[in-house]
């Protein structure tokens, strides 16, 4: 029996096993798209409907004017009034509002007379990201208000600020964070299914004892390993591509690059992920260990260190170095490049190279270990 | 009162009837064998008797307690050993004994005594700290039996206890079962090794969920009382078999290793007659004589009749 034939035999058995375990099959094929649906809609960093409470100690036209500028901005939802400090503590401690605006008693009079005055903003800092944005919005609103009153009071001869910023956003003009997250989701799900299924399928045979039997047969390690991973490669590939299609249909994710290149990049990434699963299977003896190891070395790094959610440039240097060994990092650059920027390998060739090196290195290491264990 | 009383026990899985109207008794001190091919319903029956599975209908009393009403009390009085020798491979011999002893509520004194007994019985003295997973199948088998009887139950269920074990260990194991039986323990064993079943006092053959035959070994073999079994050895066994099949006096044939067993329709036919027939067909029989029916013959006969 030629090696190819043996590989096919093993692959066919594995596919049959996968097919029989309907739940796992369901999870591998359909759940990713379902996830995309749910998370694509649910997850974003876009901050809306910020609940804000107000303590208006002035109750003048001017103070009401400020409050309505907040409401009309579309960012804030007015929660209500907070009469005293105790009430302020309560609403913030209880997470009922994100921020409290306090307008001092002489606000209207001061503004009309052209005297400097300030409003107070208390922000719940527990979520720094949201807090930063809130502060940014508020400063912007206040400075616009200030400019208006300055004009009215005839202060200065400026018709508006000296410098204005005209922002232009490339690739994602509406700044929909969905578009950012979706490629990440693809990477995440692909990584998870590829690594975990491969690792578990081999370790399970080790645990149950059928591995010994296979070793007795004249199959040989290479056809066995290839045969075992091929079905998972196929399944993960189908799953990943279906997520891309689903993202395009459901979220208007653009596909500005080449489909062929996309297929190639995804395949390269998956090969690396599967190789990683093989490596794990050569280290773990029980499925529990395999799984925990897979979680530790792929689930979490892919989630946290690949640039999926948290920008790498904001991380401390030592961690940025670590991200160089997270394959998902390179995959994301290439994926986003193809899908959102419409560029090709000429631009991200270095990332493709990194993915290739990763795949080859891990495959080499894994096969070395597995072959030794086979003997 | 019998140790085990089973009446019209039935178990369905959807439309599939795994155990179909089975009734039998097992007395104290008796070794009762449950024979059948794989999937015949042996394990299902045992599971019901152990309180692991709820019968669809019928009743069973184990140790005087109704299995449907109070399965938990049943468990206190039985020992069970499964096909897989379910021991904790990552625990040492001693740790497994201590664990099961603790589960059965043995106090320190009694546990010490029983531990000594089991170690001797299994021949594991000196290997108390060995990891169970490191023991070979024969040792694990005996340890599993030991752990099943730590609490000295009057009734023991053994489900295919000799699977995957070498013949020497198997024989040793059956000696242990004999010891148990002599001590008054009722033992219900399932097996598909028919030679082992000869050890049993009484045997039941289960086919497709039904009790196809039931009685002492002698009684079962009596189905061949009027139909002697001829064993024919010849150089060309297959040709001999074909020739025998063609003879009207022969009911059926089967190959047993290098010999052919032919069931004669009547005891009037003699071996000499058959031998002569074979010679005239051009086959030289090396030997041709009546043999004592084995349980295998019985089993095949029963299987055929039930299938019909």
């Amino acid at each position, binding site marked *: 029996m030629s090696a190819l034939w043996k590989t096919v035999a093993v692959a066919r058995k594995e596919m049959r096993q996968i097919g029989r375990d309907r739940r796992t099959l369901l999870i591998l094929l359909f759940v990713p798209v379902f996830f995309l649906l749910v998370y694509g809609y649910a997850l974003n960093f876009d901050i809306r409907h910020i609940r804000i409470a107000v303590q208006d100690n002035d109750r003048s036209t001017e103070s009401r004017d400020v409050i309505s500028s907040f409401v009309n901005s579309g960012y804030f939802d007015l929660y209500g009034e907070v009469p005293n400090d105790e009430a302020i503590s309560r609403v913030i401690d209880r997470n009922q509002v994100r921020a409290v605006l306090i307008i001092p008693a002489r606000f209207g009079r001061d503004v009309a007379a052209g005297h400097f005055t300030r409003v107070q903003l208390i922000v719940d800092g527990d979520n720094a990201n949201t807090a930063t944005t809130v502060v940014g919005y508020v400063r912007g609103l206040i400075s616009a208000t200030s400019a208006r009153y300055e004009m009215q009071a005839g202060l200065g001869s400026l018709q508006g600020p000296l410098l204005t910023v005209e922002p232009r956003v490339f690739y994602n003009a509406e700044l929909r964070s969905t578009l950012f997250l979706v490629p990440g989701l693809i990477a995440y799900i692909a990584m998870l299914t590829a690594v*975990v299924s491969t690792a578990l399928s081999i370790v399970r045979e080790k645990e149950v004892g059928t591995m010994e039997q296979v070793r007795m047969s004249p199959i040989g390690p290479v056809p066995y390993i290839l045969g075992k991973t091929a079905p998972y490669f196929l399944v993960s590939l189908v799953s990943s591509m279906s997520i891309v299609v689903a993202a395009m249909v459901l979220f208007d994710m653009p596909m500005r690059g080449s489909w062929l290149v996309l297929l190639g990049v995804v395949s390269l990434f998956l090969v690396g992920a599967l190789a990683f699963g093989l490596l794990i299977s050569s280290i773990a003896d029980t499925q529990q260990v395999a799984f925990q190891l897979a979680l530790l070395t792929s689930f979490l790094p892919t989630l946290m260190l690949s640039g999926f959610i948290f920008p790498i440039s904001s991380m401390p240097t030592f961690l940025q170095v670590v991200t160089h060994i997270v394959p998902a990092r390179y995959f994301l650059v290439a994926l986003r490049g193809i899908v959102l920027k419409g560029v090709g390998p000429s631009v991200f060739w270095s990332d493709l190279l990194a993915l290739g090196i990763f795949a080859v290195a891990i495959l080499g290491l894994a096969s070395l270990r597995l072959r030794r264990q086979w003997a | 009162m019998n140790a085990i009383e089973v009446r019209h026990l039935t178990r369905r899985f959807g439309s599939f009837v795994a155990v179909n109207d089975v009734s039998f008794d097992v007395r104290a001190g008796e070794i009762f064998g449950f024979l059948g091919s794989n999937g015949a319903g042996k394990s299902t029956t045992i599971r019901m008797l152990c309180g692991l599975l709820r019968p669809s209908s019928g009743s069973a009393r184990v140790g005087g307690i109704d299995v449907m009403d109070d399965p938990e009390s049943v468990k206190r009085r039985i020992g069970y050993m499964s096909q897989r020798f379910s021991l904790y491979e990552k625990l040492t011999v001693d740790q497994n004994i201590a664990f099961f002893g603790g589960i059965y509520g043995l106090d320190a004194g009694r546990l010490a005594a029983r531990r000594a007994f089991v170690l001797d019985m299994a021949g594991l003295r000196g290997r108390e700290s060995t990891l169970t997973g490191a023991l070979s199948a024969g040792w694990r088998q005996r340890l599993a039996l030991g752990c099943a009887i730590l609490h000295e139950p009057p009734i023991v269920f053994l489900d295919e206890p000799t699977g995957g074990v070498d013949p020497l260990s198997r024989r040793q194991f059956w000696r242990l079962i004999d010891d148990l039986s002599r001590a008054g323990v009722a033992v219900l064993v399932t097996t598909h090794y028919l030679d082992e079943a000869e050890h049993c006092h009484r045997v039941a053959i289960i086919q497709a969920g039904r009790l196809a035959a039931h009685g002492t070994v002698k009684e079962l073999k009596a189905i061949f009382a009027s139909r002697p079994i001829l064993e024919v050895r010849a150089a060309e066994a297959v040709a001999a078999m074909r020739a025998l099949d063609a003879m009207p006096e022969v009911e059926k044939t089967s190959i047993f290793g290098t010999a052919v067993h032919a069931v004669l329709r009547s005891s009037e036919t003699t071996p000499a007659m058959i031998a002569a027939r074979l010679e005239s067909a051009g086959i030289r029989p090396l030997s041709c004589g009546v043999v004592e029916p084995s349980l295998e013959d019985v089993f095949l006969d029963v299987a055929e009749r039930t299938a019909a």
Partner: protein
Amino acid sequence: MTRLTHVIRKEFLELRQDPRLFGIVIMAPIIQLTMLGYAATTDVRNVPLVVVDQDGSSESRDLVSRFEASQSFMVIDRVSSVRQIDRYLDTGEAWMALTIPADYGERVSEGTPTTIQVVADGTDANSTNVALGYAGALIADYARELAAASGLVAGPPLVSAEVRVWFNPQLESRDFMIPGILALLLLVVTTNLSSMAIVRERELGTLEQLNVTPIARWELILGKMLPYALIGLIDVLLVVVVAVFWFEVPLRGSLTLLLLMCMVYLLTTLGLGLFVSTISSTQQQAMMTASFFFLIPMVFLSGFIFPIENMPAVFQPVTYLIPLRYFLVILRGIFLKGVGLETLWPEALALLGWGVGILTLATLRSSKRLA
């Protein structure tokens, strides 16, 4: 020793024989916490910026130096033509490009309003948003200064805002993330371990053996759960120590309350593990089910990273079903806000209810008798 103690002891003895698992379970949380503690930041720093200075005057250079001085930006290159921006943005070398028009210096010294263009890579919408905000604020402040210096305005703005950020004045996103990581680690470790532990016994056949013994159902369940609860609590202590002493996350509330709430949370995670074990026949199934149907949704929909208030209104009711949601509020409340049960009682109650509910459901499903 009671039967229960025997089961617990056996579980630990088995774990001891698998030092790799043991090691992973204790070491992993530390490693993960360290990794995540540093990576999980939504702060925007060192945004790579390329500058197109079409003017080259001292005024334009002054503006650019403001950007260079800022921690939020990192000027990686200066180019002279707008066409060169594309290369930087396409490759991702720069996220933003600042274009200063050719007549900038002139107009500024005359006091004529000028527009500066900022081009941003929108793929990372969140960071871009924040970065644009920083750029805008930087430019606005600079504009103010220039105007004041040339006597065009009276000085400081008429109306300004004094901002006080409670609980986290440095706006460290880490303080928000790390309590969440604690919850996540507990969830991942205890749910998976407990579900796989039971399913493995089923796969190997020892569960059947146990079912034949007089052991009670609750003894079996409790005996299998307690070791993992203990491991979980050890992990909690480890994580709290690292979080407080290494990452300097403030622990303003009561440690006792924290541990108590962790135990309630463990009810839910272990109950979930037990539940998964009753619906899975192999370890692979158990693990897949636990991760995909429970863990991953919990990670994303509980408010761990993505605030619930950002989610479309349609999704928000769903999040009430997720125990992690309540636990995160409790954790952040205890760590950052220093509040106690008097404020957190609704969440604590919800968590307790969830835990008791799932544990009961799972126990009912795990009968010693198969139908």
